[in-house]
């Protein structure tokens, strides 16, 4: 099992008030799956995403990533796993504005101490996969939103992670660009990449194979998408 969450609870203390964002989430995601986590704001989906993405630790419960318990690891170990196992795609792209597309894609490999020649080759290959070979020397502000998100996807896949974790990846994009991104996700998933996507848009969720619906910190629905959109 790639991702195995068992009775995950997350409690935030805001002064004297305690807020229970996740009330015992259990979820299994296999290799090759394409899962959408949906729910209204305040449902806990961001908290769940942070925990799955190893950016946050659960208050209690168990999280096994590739059969290794990760809920008790320290910051350095988590950084290592984020680097090797998880590819992040954010709503606001989160590219470094001073670096060009190529350098942005090379960044995770810098922290993995991959030699510069190999870094370049792999970054070029990743940019080719997302269809941006032409604009590798452009800085983020010289690229359209869709293009920026494609750079971010290239950055996410360049370390060959266990899964992509996308947080509202089309949230800042127009319809045409959104479709582009969904096409890339489709192709990546078809070639074996596991994708976990947080979204609140139903039609974006309909691109995935499985929808996990949250409300008030609980999973209220976990279904196979009957008529998913494919390209």
């Amino acid at each position: 099992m790639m991702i195995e969450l068992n009775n995950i609870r997350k409690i935030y203390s805001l002064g004297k008030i305690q807020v229970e964002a996740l009330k015992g989430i259990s979820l299994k995601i296999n290799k090759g799956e394409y899962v959408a986590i949906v729910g209204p704001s305040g449902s806990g989906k961001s908290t769940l995403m942070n925990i799955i993405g190893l950016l946050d630790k659960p208050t209690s419960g168990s999280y096994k990533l590739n059969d290794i318990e990760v809920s008790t690891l320290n910051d350095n170990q988590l950084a290592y796993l984020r680097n090797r196992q998880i590819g992040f795609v954010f709503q606001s792209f989160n590219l470094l504005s001073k670096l060009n597309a190529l350098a942005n894609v090379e960044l995770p490999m810098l922290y993995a101490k991959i030699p510069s020649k190999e870094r370049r080759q792999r970054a070029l290959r990743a940019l080719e996969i997302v269809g941006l070979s032409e604009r590798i020397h452009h800085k983020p502000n010289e690229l359209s939103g869709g293009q920026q998100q494609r750079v971010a996807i290239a950055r996410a896949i360049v370390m060959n992670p266990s899964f992509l974790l996308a947080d509202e990846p089309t949230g800042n994009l127009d319809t045409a660009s959104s479709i582009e991104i969904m096409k890339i996700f489709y192709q990546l998933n078809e070639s074996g990449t596991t994708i976990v996507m947080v979204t609140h848009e139903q039609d974006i969720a309909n691109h995935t194979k499985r929808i996990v619906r949250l409300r008030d910190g609980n999973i209220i629905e976990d279904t196979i998408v009957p008529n998913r959109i494919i390209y």
Partner: protein
Amino acid sequence: MHILEAIKLAIDSILSNKLRAFLTMLGIIIGIASVITIVSLGTGGQKAILGEFEKIGVNVFSIKTRNDVEIRDSDRLAIRDVEMIRKRLSSVKYAAPIAEKMGLAKTDKYTKRALFIATDFDYGNVSNLKVIYGRFLNEKDILIGRNVVLIDKDSAKELFGYEDCVGKTIKIGSYSSFDTAEIIGVIDSGNLKSLGGSIADQIPVIAAIPITYAQKIFPDVNISQIYVMTYDQNQLDETSSQALRLIESLHHNKDKYKTENLIRFLEEFNRILGIFTAVIGAIAGISLLVGGIGIMNIMLVSVTERTREIGIRKAIGARQRDILTQFLIEAVTISLIGGAIGIFLGYILANIVGPFIDITPVFSINTILIAFLFSTAVGIFFGIYPAQKAAKLDPIVALRYE
């Protein structure tokens, strides 16, 4: 992340904010530049003064009659005193009497004022006198009071038109009577006369003559002091008191003489130098402190500005240590560049100021290394807090930061 990558990142970051980086460096630049300027000029001055001491010799002392007591004729220093010092005191290497007398030097064409230094064959050894043509006085010259003279090379040129006038004769004496002496040597006159102009005309002929000859032609000549050189600097104090006692016993008197040596001056000089160094150190410390605070301030601003960047880097796998290194290296790079500019500026400044105060600045590798070391230390010391702040940012919070 490799150090080299981090350095490249730091330089990129500095270049993307040139004016701000420069203003941040200014404190360090001014601090290091002033230290380099003052230290190089100080070292230059010290070297020049020590060089003078070295020339004269630090294991030399002089014996004089005291000028605060009554001196009778029988108390006056005599050639015999010099001979006895040489003979009786085993630690004495050389000893020479010195009598100075103003008079005139004449050739067929010119008459010039002259300062006669009446001494003996050891004088060349106890002073920094350099014979450039001919020879110095020898034992026989002293023994028979031979009518020989050495003159300085500038005077030689003025009187004869050329420097090497060995073998020529010159008339020397006071205003009423003159004696003919043979020039046996020409001595270096140092740089006194290179000043030129009217000052050069004021400077008399410097002429060394045998003390015994001086006693023949100047009836009133008196030995003003005896220069004594010991074999070793450590023997200086003991030999001085031995020489004093010896001369007192020869003249059957007490407390009429005093000895002086350069060690005392040297010690005083070093003491002043120590104070000077401490003051510079304090100034340097304060300016580097101010510079360091500037760096810390701007690094804190930079961490806040780049919170989101830090969040992104952490999300994609940067460890705390990577972020810490990145910001620390940035701080150190700023202070090192500031230090380098400061060293360069100090070098230029010292070379501009040096000629005005007649000091050749000395730049030692040590000074430059210490300047670099200090810059690095300032960068680390004032960079560590902002860097730690950056490293400890929570990635979730950092990613949300607008």
